[in-house]
């Protein structure tokens, strides 16, 4: 077994004050527990299961203004409010709020914690009702389609016949594509952002590095760390550090850090974080483990790896969208090398082949994959224009 580097520590960087975090039972948002089994792609039927979700805005009388936001790999349902564990602003605060592009005074926004997640939805760190102990690795392996099936149960429960829009970046974009493909009549508009219709070998490779880092941590205990009262924090932090590099771009990293040294005038001829970029990555790793579960990371990365929408449709991606009436807007970013424009364009070509109504914009930015979470005026203006156009067609009144 590979020996890993010493635990990433950030001198002077306080870890999150656990006493500030809301206890799990008092976290904001809602939970829906469904008794009826959820048929999973693996053949297992999951029952009962819980979907934790949060909403913003108000559902209108004819229930036509609902937007489902699908979160990315390590996101959660706290889109536009301080995170209950970290206290940091919501991950899409920049887009969601009164008067913002995803306008909470106009739309009813829903975000679920994905199946397999660790913020209240059924996942490996939750208690298996059959045994009274945490699922750990006995939790069934789930897929993007399973996540979407669970979300659909919630949308049914909320009495929403058709979502005005399903939107998401990265893994959220995969869920968006899955929604549009599996339930076209339930999706008026779909916005897959910085995503792909299948995980590439490179995508799988990076995920495997992350999983191996977790499993190489002695505290992982073959997945049974909860009962042992430990956490594979080092492994999960390394996984996050490796992944975080893929979310940025070389120019963005260079612009932010260059070869600048961390609180020192000269290199130390040692293995401390001499460089700012090292310190930054260590901080990313450490703050991540405070809010994320290692086994969830295994399950959710696996779900991404298994995603291949064309494979489910005879190898022809266009077949996933035949006859669709959904209006699509695909958005990519020039410096995103994790889900590059070419992969997003493949989705667009498939939609063209299905004669679907599709817009496609590539946004010029050096911020890499993370651009979908950041202040990118061109992206936001495009999204606003698309949603306004769709709202007009859907007959949603302007405010």
């Amino acid at each position, binding site marked *: 077994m590979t020996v890993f580097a010493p635990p990433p520590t950030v001198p002077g960087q306080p870890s999150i004050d656990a006493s500030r975090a809301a206890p799990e039972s008092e976290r904001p948002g809602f939970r829906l527990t469904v008794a009826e089994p959820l048929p999973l792609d693996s053949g297992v039927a999951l029952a009962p299961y819980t979907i934790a979700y949060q909403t913003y805005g108000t559902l209108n009388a004819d229930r036509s203004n609902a937007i489902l936001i699908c979160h990315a790999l390590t996101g959660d349902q706290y889109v536009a409010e301080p995170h209950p564990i970290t206290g940091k602003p919501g991950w899409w605060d920049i887009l969601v709020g009164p008067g913002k592009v995803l306008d909470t005074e106009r739309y009813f926004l829903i975000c679920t914690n994905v199946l397999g997640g660790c913020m209240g939805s059924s996942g490996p760190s939750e208690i298996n009702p059959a045994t009274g102990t945490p699922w750990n690795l006995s939790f069934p392996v789930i897929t993007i389609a399973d996540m979407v099936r669970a979300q659909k149960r919630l949308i049914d429960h909320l009495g929403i016949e058709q979502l005005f829009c399903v939107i998401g970046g990265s893994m959220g974009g995969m869920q968006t594509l899955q929604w549009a493909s599996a339930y076209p009549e339930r999706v008026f508009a779909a916005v897959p952002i910085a995503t792909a219709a299948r995980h590439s070998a490179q995508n799988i490779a990076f995920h495997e590095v992350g999983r191996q880092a977790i499993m190489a941590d002695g505290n992982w205990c073959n997945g049974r760390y909860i009962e042992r009262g430990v956490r594979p924090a080092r492994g999960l932090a390394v996984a996050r550090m490796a992944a975080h590099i893929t979310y940025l771009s070389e120019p963005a990293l260079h612009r932010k850090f260059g070869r600048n040294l961390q609180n020192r005038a000269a290199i130390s001829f040692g293995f401390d974080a001499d460089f700012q970029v090292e310190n930054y990555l260590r901080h990313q790793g450490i703050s991540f483990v405070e809010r994320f579960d290692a086994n969830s990371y295994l399950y959710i990365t696996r779900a991404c790896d298994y995603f291949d929408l064309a494979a489910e449709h005879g190898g022809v991606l*266009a077949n996933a969208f035949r006859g669709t009436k959904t*209006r699509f*807007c*695909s958005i990519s970013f020039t410096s995103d090398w994790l889900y590059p424009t070419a992969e997003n364009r493949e989705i*667009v*070509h*498939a939609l*063209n*082949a*299905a*004669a679907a*109504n*599709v*817009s*496609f*914009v*590539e946004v*010029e930015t050096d911020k890499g994959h993370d651009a979908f979470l950041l202040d990118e*005026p*061109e992206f*936001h*203006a*495009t999204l*606003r*224009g*698309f949603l*306004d*156009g*769709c709202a*007009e067609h859907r007959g949603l009144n302007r405010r």
Partner: protein
Amino acid sequence: MSPDAPFLAPQKPAALREDLRLVADMIMPGSRVLDLGCGDGELLYFLVHHKNVDGRGMELSQGGVNACVRNGLSVIQGDADNDLRDYPTQAFDYIVLSQTLQATRHPHEVLRHLVRIGRHAIVSFPNFGHWRMRLRLLKEGRMPRTPVLPHHWYDTPNIHLCTILDFIDLCDEESIVVERNVTLDEQGRAYRLDPRGRLANLLAAQGLFMLAGKENSH
């Protein structure tokens, strides 16, 4: 256009550029239209809002695409040479290729795609047989530059220029049916000239054609 630019004001028919208005007049209300090289969406916006078409666009420039999508139009970034092969046969009632054919790498292949994907293809292009071109070349011995074709020979995107008669020859060779044709003066107004005649080829600054594949022509 700045990101905060407001919606385009709905345009009155008269506000549309003259040559685009002639294109718009050829299109039946309520039909499915793909506008290739749609620029900032002037024609498409008009068609969607005044002719109730199910309109889509394709545009090479990112600025143009973004402006269109911001205005609620369904437009993708792409070009006629590379991005037409995915579209299914007869996906649209009309495909518009306005002032773009001469900038494609393989105009004959583009034309084949147009009449395959569209029941009708509406194509306009600058006429290199126009008297002003001929005169410039004859008198000055240099590549002509005109208001319609303002570029230098070395920086022009227009790599496959042709005359109206050349274009008609190509349509004949490709068994493409010319359903309608109009010749336009430098202001984009229609001439009453036989487009297959030598006079039109000399006087017209632009040709505007409605084409169909042999199997689709009526």
